[in-house]
């Protein structure tokens, strides 16, 4: 089997297998799986709303998927994208509020820099802790997720909320920091759909991540560290530096979710805005086999499911939108247990040999 065929086949098997297991669950609760899946996936294809919202939902997932990918390529598991994107979204809003007088030409890049740098900073903490003290990045990123959520909730509640506002959110950012919805440029595509230029930025990031990892010396060193740290160190690569660099790049990518959310959608920081983007990013990276193109495809699938979840909630008798999370979990389990399919195929082959 060629590498490309394997890269396409296994994710496909995992998705199909997950849909079969999910279908059995839907049958058990008393609905027709085909109807449920038609609602789940069919609604994503309608023009303009289905496609528009699916691409909008895919935007944060591409960013977090890339973030997890960069970590994985260095042998690191960044479960902290969720915390990084919260910190970054808040920082983005902070700049958008604090420097409201700047013109758009300065304010938008300034806000974007805030998102990228604060995300990178928050992710660099576990990077430094791992490089300096050897403490496991998985534990530290989990802990930092909770710290991040508590920290931004504190700042929002005590310092940046509009007095009297019952919702835990900051004041709106300056209008100069708004980035345009794609409806402005595409005829027939309504501006009310929040899909915005951050989606194009996400696609650009896929290309940049590809170039960075596979066409630069730094990227090569990160991948070398990921595939065999001992050999990399023997070859003169500083593993510690690569760990910190990879975490920072990973966090910067996760942080860009703030650009989509704050500059492109709500135009303020809103407590609890993330629909588990950071965790879904893990599923996106794994299903996309840690390749930027795979990340785009996987992000589109999960975004379509998430969008379809609303319709399932509304139009099916028993199935709720929770089926989306269930499918996501099963998909990652199947992707993780690739050996299971190999074992299954191997057993079949050996059975045939026995029969022959």
């Amino acid at each position, binding site marked *: 089997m060629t590498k490309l065929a394997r890269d396409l086949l296994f994710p496909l098997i995992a998705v199909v297998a997950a849909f079969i297991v999910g279908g059995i*669950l839907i049958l058990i*609760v*008393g609905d027709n799986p085909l109807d449920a899946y038609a609602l789940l996936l069919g609604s994503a294809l309608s023009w303009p709303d289905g496609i528009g919202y699916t691409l909008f939902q895919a935007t944060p997932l591409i960013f977090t998927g890339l973030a997890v990918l960069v970590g994985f390529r260095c042998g690191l*598991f960044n*479960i902290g994208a969720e915390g990084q994107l919260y910190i970054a979204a808040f920082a983005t809003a902070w700049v958008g509020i604090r420097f409201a007088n700047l013109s758009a030409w300065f304010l938008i890049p300034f806000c974007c820099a805030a998102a990228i740098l604060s995300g990178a900073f928050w992710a660099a903490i576990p990077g430094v*802790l791992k490089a*300096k*003290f050897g*403490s*496991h990045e*998985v*534990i*530290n990123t*989990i*802990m*930092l997720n*909770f*710290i991040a959520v*508590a*920290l931004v*909730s*504190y700042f929002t*509640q*005590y310092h940046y909320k509009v007095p009297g506002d019952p919702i835990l959110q900051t004041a709106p950012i300056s209008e100069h920091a708004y980035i345009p919805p794609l409806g402005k440029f595409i005829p027939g595509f309504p501006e009310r759909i929040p899909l915005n230029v951050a989606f194009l930025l996400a696609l650009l990031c896929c290309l940049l991540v590809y170039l960075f990892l596979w066409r630069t010396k730094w990227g090569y060193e990160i991948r070398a560290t990921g595939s065999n740290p001992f050999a990399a160190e023997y070859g003169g690569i500083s593993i510690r530096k690569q760990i910190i660099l990879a975490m920072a790049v990973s966090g910067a990518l996760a942080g860009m979710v703030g650009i989509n959310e704050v500059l492109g959608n709500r135009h303020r920081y809103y407590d609890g805005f993330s629909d*588990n983007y950071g*965790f*879904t990013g*893990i*599923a996106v990276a*794994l299903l996309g086999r840690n390749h930027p193109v795979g990340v785009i495809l996987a992000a589109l699938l999960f975004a379509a499911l998430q969008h379809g979840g609303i319709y399932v909630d509304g139009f099916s008798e*028993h*199935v*709720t*939108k*929770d*089926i*989306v*999370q*269930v*499918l*996501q*979990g*099963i998909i*990652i*389990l199947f*992707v*993780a*247990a*690739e*050996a*299971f399919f190999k*074992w299954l195929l191997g057993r079949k082959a050996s059975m045939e040999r026995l029969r022959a």
Partner: protein
Amino acid sequence: MALGTKSVDGTFASVKLMRDIFTFSLIASTIRLGTPLVLAALGGLFSERSGVINIALEGKMLAGAFTAAAVTYAADKSLGLGNMSPWAGLFAGMLAGLFIAAIYAVICIKFKADQVVSGAAINILMIGMPGFLSGAFFLSSGSTPQIPKDHLLPQSPIVIAIAVLVVVAIIWYVLYNTPFGLRLRSVGENPEAADAAGVSVSKIRYSGVLLAGVLAGIGGAYLSIGQSSLFTRNMTAGRGFIALAALIFGKWRPVQTLLACLLFGFTEAVSIQMQGVFKLPSGEDIPVQFIQMVPYVLTIVVLAGFIGSSRPPRALGIPYQKEK
């Protein structure tokens, strides 16, 4: 003046503060809040000491919490078990934890999948599953129906404290004074040597992971049918991760882990009881968010080796490949 300023009634402010903090109700709620943490953390201890990472404690607690509440409700409604229904619920919650752990164990041990990835998958799956099932069976958006007050597990802090101490004592004894405990620890530290000595690495790891499922399931059950009287969406709210933090803070040892859980239960009790702000003697407020952060910050600090060192079992997270 180290104790702070004297207040009107003649006591030092800081003494008064201590008196205000350590009220009976706070100690009681520390025990109540600490209990699910202790159970889940000690479950995690079995799994991790055998060499299998357990970031899926959260998912197992959710499974236990949802199943316990659903079964307690159903046992009374359809089977008429009455006061016995919470015990049926507790048993079902335990089985749910065991079931999830069994899936996790097969994937991680038999198929040697990445333990962190599989654990994350279990957690994502279990965020969705209770909502999916309760939507179908209770036609609700993610919660089970309310269970009557007299159909809940015992609430008395003294009863719970004794029960938890007994569990910890048993676990301590099993871990340090039985052949099984010795094998468990050796498999987590040096599976090759254990294997050479005739210990089945995978059998021991299966038992470690399954025990984790049982204990985390019970911990989750206590959340829904002990502390509360129904399951609500994502009701663990990160407690599985706090349990994991306590396990690390307790350096993977039972007694220290128990103390860590009580400390973290205490921070939660304080943040609930202070209702938003915690007043310092000097009159300054500490927002509740900072109290909530304490367990996580402490864990990072301990893991980095700033307060003693917390060293994980040596083979933690590495699937065992028998040499052929």
